[in-house]
């Protein structure tokens, strides 16, 4: 059912003022050389829709990812209010540390695994209501207003990236709504991206711990750090054979 407004909506322009202020700050940072630690693209104005000019992605350098470190996982849980309810089979995990051991040599690679934000996501293909969708800027999300909880996307995902909320929740955080009966997964910290943070909670935590294994950025912008890194050193997709063109790339595997 669609409700149509018979009123003219004239948005009071507080958001634009907000944006101007923020844009000015970012500009100030950019003027001082050497201050910028990571790419700071200007935040889009709050009233502007996201566009396909950006494609957000992530680069994981498994060479520096530590096997005994799960800072990214903890940060994600904290950022999105994911609780450990003591039931590992049904508790949500948006990002997890995966250890991959070569049977022949015994060599172990440790890496974070989460939604790969595919360009052609199988979860979006199979979702009957269109609740699983890919935002213009490449972020794959679940619209929980239309998710009926059929879990078909969980069967379809090649990365086991999705969780189903198996119990009623309370105390959810305002920027990360989640609730019983819906499927959820890594949002690439979409609330931070829209805010102009230009980073995700996991990448921030990884950098804070001094590992710098996670790099967030715009794959469409040739001048972004992630694009430069990928151009120079390359990066692989997990299950590249499926042709999904993932937004998360890995180095060292």
């Amino acid at each position, binding site marked *: 059912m669609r409700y149509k407004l018979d009123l003219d909506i004239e948005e009071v322009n507080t958001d634009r003022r907000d944006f101007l202020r923020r844009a000015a700050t970012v500009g100030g940072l950019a003027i001082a050389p050497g201050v910028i630690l990571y790419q700071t693209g200007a935040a889009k104005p709050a009233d502007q829709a996201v566009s396909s000019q950006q494609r957000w992605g992530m680069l994981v350098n498994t060479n520096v990812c530590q096997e005994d470190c799960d800072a990214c996982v903890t940060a994600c849980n904290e950022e999105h209010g994911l609780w450990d309810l003591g039931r590992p089979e049904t508790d949500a995990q948006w990002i997890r540390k995966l250890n991959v051991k070569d049977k022949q040599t015994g060599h172990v690679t440790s890496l974070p695994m989460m939604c790969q934000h595919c360009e052609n996501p199988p979860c979006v293909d199979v979702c009957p209501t269109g609740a699983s969708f890919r935002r213009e800027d490449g972020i794959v999300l679940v619209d929980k207003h239309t998710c009926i909880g059929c879990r078909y996307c969980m069967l379809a995902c090649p990365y086991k990236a999705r969780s189903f909320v198996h119990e009623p929740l309370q105390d959810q955080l305002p920027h990360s709504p989640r609730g019983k009966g*819906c499927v959820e997964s890594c949002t690439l910290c979409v609330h931070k991206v829209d805010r102009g943070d230009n980073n995700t909670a996991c990448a921030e935590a990884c950098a804070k711990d001094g590992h710098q294994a996670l790099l967030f950025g715009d794959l469409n912008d040739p001048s972004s750090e992630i694009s430069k890194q990928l151009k120079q050193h390359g990066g692989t997709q997990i299950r590249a054979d499926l042709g999904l063109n993932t937004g998360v790339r890995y180095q060292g595997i």
Partner: protein
Amino acid sequence: MRILKSKWHILVCLIITLIAYVPMFNAFAESSADIPKPKSNYSDETRCVEPVAIMRKQHFVYLLEHRDKTVIEGIRTTQYSLNACIDCHITPNAEGEFARYSDDTHFCASCHQFTAVNIDCFQCHADRPEEAIRKTRNPNTTVTAHTQEIHEYLQLGETQPH
């Protein structure tokens, strides 16, 4: 259907129905006094983001419109954002406590309980401002205690460890 043939019976039914409604009016009168006032006016000209009379009737229309824009297009204006509504309307009482949606003094609940309109917004969305939620969410709580807390809140009874 014999019962409906007698007018006398219909009259009795009507009176019983009316009496049944009286406590509801009372409850509304009592609880509305305890409902915290919003933080501030939206602007110098208007109290809320639209005239109050319109908001009372049509707030869900704005919310529905805005929700798809935010989720699908990433538009993050605050005028019709549910989080902004909550931030302004859910304020602490005299003891500094924030009402949850399950309390009848919660701004949304106070009216929705009275009109018996069920909403599922707060199955997923925060029903209080972030500061209030951070206060009740104790990251140091042990896993089982936390589960128990949630279950007590939902009145689901004992939980078995998995």
